[in-house]
């Protein structure tokens, strides 16, 4: 688990950024072999200072046109529960730890994370249990996520507009 990528998508999630860059979390990550931690912080107010130590680097950025490259390079992705981030990560075939933002108005994001967790595709926790999860998690238990079928949607649409 050399490289860990943290992503909050287009929103802000300062609690996650604070939790994952805290000394106990960094210690937990390093004890699992993490040498590079990359934070995508979106619109967040909290912007941790980048670090370059011989065995550990912390990189921080707000937005990029595409996160595909960062996802590809990661050995573990830690993400907010946004559908885009979750699906992109799972499709890259990367182990995913979803961290729930309990401060969102209606906590509907829990639904997807819980379902993906129930189906064995992701690990999930909240900011206060992050360190504990990083210490105890077993990534080998995660099941691969089969791709969605947009072709079924195309067939349906062709049928209802009369294109068959």
């Amino acid at each position, binding site marked *: 688990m050399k490289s860990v990528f943290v992503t909050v998508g287009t929103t802000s999630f300062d609690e996650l950024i604070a939790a994952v860059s805290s000394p106990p979390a960094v210690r937990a990550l390093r004890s699992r072999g993490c040498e590079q931690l990359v934070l995508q912080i979106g619109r967040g107010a909290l912007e941790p200072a980048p670090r370059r130590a011989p065995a550990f680097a912390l990189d921080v950025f707000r937005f990029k046109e595409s996160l595909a490259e960062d996802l590809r390079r990661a050995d573990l992705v830690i993400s907010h529960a946004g559908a*885009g981030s979750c699906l992109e990560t799972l499709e890259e075939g990367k182990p995913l730890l979803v961290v729930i933002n309990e401060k969102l108005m209606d906590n509907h994001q829990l639904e997807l994370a819980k379902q993906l967790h129930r189906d064995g595709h992701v690990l999930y926790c909240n900011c206060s249990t992050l360190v504990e999860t990083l210490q105890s998690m077993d990534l080998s238990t995660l099941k691969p996520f089969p791709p969605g079928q947009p072709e079924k949607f195309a067939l349906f649409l062709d049928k209802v507009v009369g294109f068959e």
Partner: protein
Amino acid sequence: MEPPLPLLSGTAAILLLLLLLLVPLAFLARRRRGRRAPPLSLLVVAGSGGHTTEILRLLSCLSESYSPRHYIFADSDKMSEAKIRSFEQKRAEKFSNSQFTLDRIPRSREVRQSWTSSVVTTLYSILYSFPLTYKLKPDLILCNGPGTCVPVCISALLLGLLGIKRAVIVYVESICRVETLSLSGKILYYFSDYFIVQWPALKEKYPKSVYLGRIV
């Protein structure tokens, strides 16, 4: 015993009136659901982050008959435009005469905004999206739940009521809705022509919805 003549003619008159009403209505309904000749212009309401990713996945398998594609997204949205442009760039490599447009409208509701102020900003968004929808006159509207899609669909319904253009509204609830509908979904369940959900629990709760499995 024969029925009295006035009663008979009264019944006949009502029958005739019913026929006069029902025939044009049935004709209208047939036209609404009937076959359409390609190409169809498609209005796509993109949203921030996940919504845009999902809607581009839905578009990924559509044939070149769905052209041009008019994208509308909220002006506070940072990432959608780049995602859409890169999607369309790839599409242009496959289909040579691929066409699309991009338009921004004010966002009708931020994630943490209260309901009362949401109503005011939604009204403002309708004022803004009506002329845009009028200009684009789409055959088909595809949306998947960002706040922006409610004012756009209301504008399209108004165009239909005014007899200017009747668009088919297809709503696809986001994959992140497993057990409950989004606010946009709760509203558009009643106003969309086709309402698609991606988890079986929602199909059970909302019988009018269509379940095709996971499509993004």
